[in-house]
């Protein structure tokens, strides 16, 4: 063993791929943000307000409106608890609700792959209608494009939405203040694990259902119960990514208590087996809220009475300003940082 020179141990300096879009750019984490900051915002964001919330807020004749858009690509199209149609409606309704807006109307654009059956398309459209009815929004306009076989994966759906923000409501990722209580509306990670389990190549069976749901009614109840300062739906990138974004937007330190976090046993078990962390798994029917300290009990109580807030729980609070970070008090009493999802969520080797 004498020939091994430890002081000479080296590590390569690999070249970072910079010229190609990779799947990780769509994962909602830091790679997505890199793409936004490096390419989209310098070209397209010059005139836009840089709040980077789930919806943009525009003012016309003194009235504030929320505007948002979201494209939906999911495989498989139908998964336990939902499908791409319900996802497309709920995604946009929720983005509007996260700035406190009452959704008014949605548009939808379909990109269809040649060869798709009418029966399947009809199932998706019916599901959209049901979700829209539940949310109380109507589809005001639509568009259809068909591409050659292989040009898309069955169906892609874009939905855009507009909503009205009532006077006195001011909800943004930049509004968290010291003392605010952090509440999640229910168990986290259900959607991501449900979709993953539906993929045939995983050989993983569970009765878990996606949480995909419109949250606008829940938000309305919360707003009438107390002062809601921040709302976000932790979709791609999971709860950790949303919390880090909020800590940066508001320039605050957030402390989360791991034992308070509601996670279904099935989700914990799946995450243990696959090497994932529930903090990074996608949700489609959950929100995280920052509530003024004195109002937190009232808001939590109101949430628990709603259809989609039954498992709501206080999970932490804002403990300081001037240092944007998210600290996690672990179940055994340790402390660590929570970071954003770096790129695509990868299963671990062993």
């Amino acid at each position, binding site marked *: *063993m*004498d020939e*091994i*020179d*430890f*002081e*000479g*141990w*080296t*590590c*390569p*300096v*690999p*070249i*970072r*791929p910079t010229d*190609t*879009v*990779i*799947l*990780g750019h769509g994962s909602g984490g*830091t*790679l997505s943000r*890199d793409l936004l900051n490096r390419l989209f915002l310098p070209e397209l964001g010059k005139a836009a307000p840089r709040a980077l919330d789930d919806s943009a807020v525009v003012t016309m004749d003194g009235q504030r409106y929320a505007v948002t858009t979201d494209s939906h690509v999911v495989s498989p199209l139908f998964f336990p608890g939902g499908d791409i149609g319900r996802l497309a409606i709920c995604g946009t309704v929720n983005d509007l609700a996260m700035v406190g807006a009452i959704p008014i109307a949605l548009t939808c654009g379909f990109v269809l792959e040649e060869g798709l059956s009418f029966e399947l398309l009809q199932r998706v459209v019916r599901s959209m209608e049901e979700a829209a009815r539940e949310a109380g929004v109507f589809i005001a306009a639509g568009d259809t494009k068909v591409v050659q076989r292989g040009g898309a994966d069955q169906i892609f759906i874009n939905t855009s939405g507009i909503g009205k923000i009532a006077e006195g409501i001011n909800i943004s990722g930049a509004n968290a203040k010291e003392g605010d209580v952090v509440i999640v509306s229910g168990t986290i990670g259900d959607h991501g694990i449900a979709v993953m389990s539906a993929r045939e*190549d*995983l*050989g993983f069976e569970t009765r878990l259902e996606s949480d995909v749901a419109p949250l606008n009614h829940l938000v309305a109840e919360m707003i009438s119960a107390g002062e809601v300062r921040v709302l976000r739906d932790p979709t791609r990138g999971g709860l950790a990514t949303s919390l880090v974004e909020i800590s940066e937007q508001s320039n605050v*330190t957030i402390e989360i208590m791991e034992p308070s976090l509601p996670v279904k*046993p099935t989700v*914990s*078990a799946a995450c*243990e087996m*696959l*090497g994932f962390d529930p903090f990074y798994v996608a949700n489609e029917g959950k929100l995280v809220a920052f509530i003024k300290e004195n109002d937190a009990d009232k808001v939590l109580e109101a949430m628990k009475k709603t259809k989609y807030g039954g498992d709501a729980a206080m999970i932490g609070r804002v403990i300081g300003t001037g*240092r944007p*970070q998210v*600290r*996690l008090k*672990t*179940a*055994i*009493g*340790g*402390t*660590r*940082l929570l*970071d954003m999802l*770096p*790129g*695509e969520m*990868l*299963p*671990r*080797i*062993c």
Partner: protein
Amino acid sequence: MKYIDEYRDPAKVKTLLAEIGKVTTRPWVVMEICGGQTHAFLHHGLDQMLPGGIELVHGPGCPVCVTPLEQIDKALAIASRPDVIFTSYGDMLRVPGSTVDLFTVRAKGGDVRVVYSPLEAVKIAEANPEKQVVFFAIGFETTAPPNAMAVLQASRRGINNFSVLVSHVCVPPAMEAILSSKMNRVQAFLAAGHVCAVMGYHEYAPLVEKYKIPIVVTGFEPVDLLRGVLSAVRQLEAGVAKMENAYERAVTFEGNQPAQKVMNTVFQSVDRKWRGIGTIPQSGLGLRPEFGQFDAEKRFAVGEIVTQESPLCIAGEILQGMKKPPQCVAYGKQCTPQNPLGAPMVSAEGACAAYYKYHRDVANG
């Protein structure tokens, strides 16, 4: 979760920490071999709860980190071929080779697929007879048996369009390499529980004997890790060096013999280059000659690819436990998980990634 929660029990953790605090009278340097253990320590915040005198140094047991650059370059060359479906465990996709990573190969049209088991790769080969299906067989003794089983199944079932790009490494030679270094600071080892579940722990006895160093087989949950630390510190304080097993529920002295048999049927010991370390004699596993037809290096004639690694990152010192990630000037600045300068920042089990993810400045905060 049954079988997990009891090993994360805050009361048991507290008792063990108190016990470790009680027996520790001097500073000690303990190395956890496995990257999974490094992550577990940091994930639970356990590293900061240990008595100040106990310094944990993070060992070379991250399979992704130690896979040499030239093997990754070979993978990239094979995965770029239009006739190939390249299959791999997930976290190898982000490890950069000399030019790009497997993600980029996929983005540019290569058929690169994540599998959870090498047997899935065999199924893919069976379902795509017109394609060559290659599995990237990396890892320690933990992944070697399933990888060997995949080769064995392909051989038995005559699936000739399947092959493996092998870069297996073994733990004991790496431990010996660390111990034989003049720079070595490690005073006790927490042996990697998963590796020992397969291999048992009889093979560490010569190391304990030769280097008079405590080696404790250790698991991955907080209670397991602390039991490992306690056992190591007790030995150090008593001035003894023994082989102990603190992961009895998974590890036996002999290990999993059917798994070892499959492994030995397909693989044999070979000299192996470790990324950031160099070649360690007889430290890896390669295909036996009778399974040579499943060797992707031969099939695609990439055996000649040799890559020089450029000495700009201190991963070697990190992997040997001489330095901690924050002592690297590039750490967290030029080198982040999105822009890794070295493998330990890439892998979920890499020490630098673990620090970046869980720590950054908790200690200063």
